[in-house]
């Protein structure tokens, strides 16, 4: 468990209560962000995102499969994340722990609820064959705020994804690996995460800030400004006012973030 020396906790908190951060950022400022798409040739879609020293690669791989029985006309998105032990001394090998599960489920909801991917277009034979898009979030270096980095990398990987053309003849799917087409996408959505420290909310918490936060709030917003996902974390409460304030900031900051996708 994350134990932080009391003195560190106090000095970070005091600064923040004076509207200052250890690394000099404004309360609502992201660290430096870099994004590269198409970095893995064998993945039909991929992207690497760095926010500060946090580093994530997302790979997207389409695979033919069966639809879920209750949605026979929709393709399938499967989001999985690996908090690699290389990324942090606190990450351990093995099946995804609750942090990893929460990360991938929240990113999945953000993508899914924004209806970014046109799942109907991924249906090949209703009830029988659809495209399943596997999104693998590979966390390489953990220096705080995985959520926003993961959402950004996932959306970038989806925008970069090509799927083979398919034709159906006699109920058999013929897949043409030579003729690839982009994944059918509609809206975009990204996430902004806030940490409550002292009496303030700070955007894009660094690792040191995450260690001492009392509450966390991640907000997913679409390119058309809708709230498509939200997740509070942390052991302590937030007030309604704090939440509404965070939504306001996120509305602005998401549009900034989206520029990285262009």
């Amino acid at each position, binding site marked *: *468990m994350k134990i932080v020396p009391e003195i560190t906790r106090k000095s970070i908190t005091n600064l923040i209560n004076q509207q200052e951060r250890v690394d000099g950022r404004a309360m609502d400022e992201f660290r430096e962000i870099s994004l590269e798409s198409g970095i893995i040739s064998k993945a039909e879609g991929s992207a690497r995102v760095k926010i500060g020293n946090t580093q994530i690669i997302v790979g997207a791989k389409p695979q033919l499969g069966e639809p879920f029985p209750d949605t026979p006309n929709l393709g399938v998105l499967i989001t999985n994340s690996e908090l690699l032990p290389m990324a942090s001394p606190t990450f351990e090998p093995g099946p*995804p722990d*609750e942090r990893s*599960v*929460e990360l*991938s*489920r929240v990113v999945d*909801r953000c993508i899914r*609820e*924004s*209806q970014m991917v046109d799942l109907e277009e991924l249906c090949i034979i209703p009830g029988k064959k659809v495209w399943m898009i596997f999104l693998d979030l590979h966390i390489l270096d953990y220096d705080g705020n995985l959520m926003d980095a993961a959402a950004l990398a996932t959306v970038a990987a989806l925008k970069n994804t090509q799927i083979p053309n398919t034709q159906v003849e006699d109920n058999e799917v013929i897949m043409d690996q030579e003729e690839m087409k982009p994944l059918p996408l509609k809206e975009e959505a990204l996430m902004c995460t806030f940490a409550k420290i002292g009496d303030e909310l700070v955007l894009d918490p660094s690792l040191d800030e995450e260690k001492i936060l009392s509450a966390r*709030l991640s907000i997913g917003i*679409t390119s058309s*400004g*809708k*709230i*498509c*996902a*939200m*997740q*509070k*974390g*942390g*052991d*302590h*409460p*937030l*007030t*309604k006012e704090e*939440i*509404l304030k965070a*939504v*306001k900031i996120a*509305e602005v900051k998401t549009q900034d973030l989206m520029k990285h996708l262009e």
Partner: protein
Amino acid sequence: MIIIITLGTNVGTKAREDGRAFDELRNLKIDAGVLERADGSAYLEFGGNKILVAIYGPKESYIRRLQRPDRAVIRCRYNMAPFSVDDRKRPGPDRRSIEISKITAEALHSSVILEKYPRSMIEVFIEVLEAEGGTRCAGITAASVAMADAGIPMRDMVVACAAGKVNGEIVLDLSEVEDKDGEADVPVAILPRTGQITLLQSDGNLSADEFEKALDLAIKGCQQISEVQKEALKNRYGV
């Protein structure tokens, strides 16, 4: 399937599938102290949901790396019975239950005076015996009652309820059908004394205004449910 259109109290709202008003909760019943072995327990029925919660602890933490020198930790296990849903659920944790367990423990955390029990552990076992939409909120509501039944000192009794958007309307306490067909679901848990929010999720598409409306409605729902929690403890302990 036959849609029952009830008029009655639905003044000023579109009809909901089960005839409730937009701000109306499903039937709710809570009993405290229903299990023999557990240190505390509660049974809750909420619409078609049937939920049983047991508390063990505070006791020595057998997982050393979870021990905290200055307080107890809360561990939660939310579990659905295989027979609780239409298609049998395979036993054992899945990704959904792992996430709900995590946020439930976080939602309960600030209500319990954990500092009284350094190095110890409080275990919360939530069994969904039957599920009909809103089990995570119902689990949190029942867990607080079970926690009180266990005699664990608390600052307040966390209570949870969802609001959401169905057929373009912001409504309280989504049923299973509404959750499935609706546009958005916003589960909320609060500390009723201060109104502070200890659990918040949002799933679906909402404008900022709609979100605020849903949040307000959920908080109102929480306050109503809070009374039923207190009633349950009164029935049990005559306090």
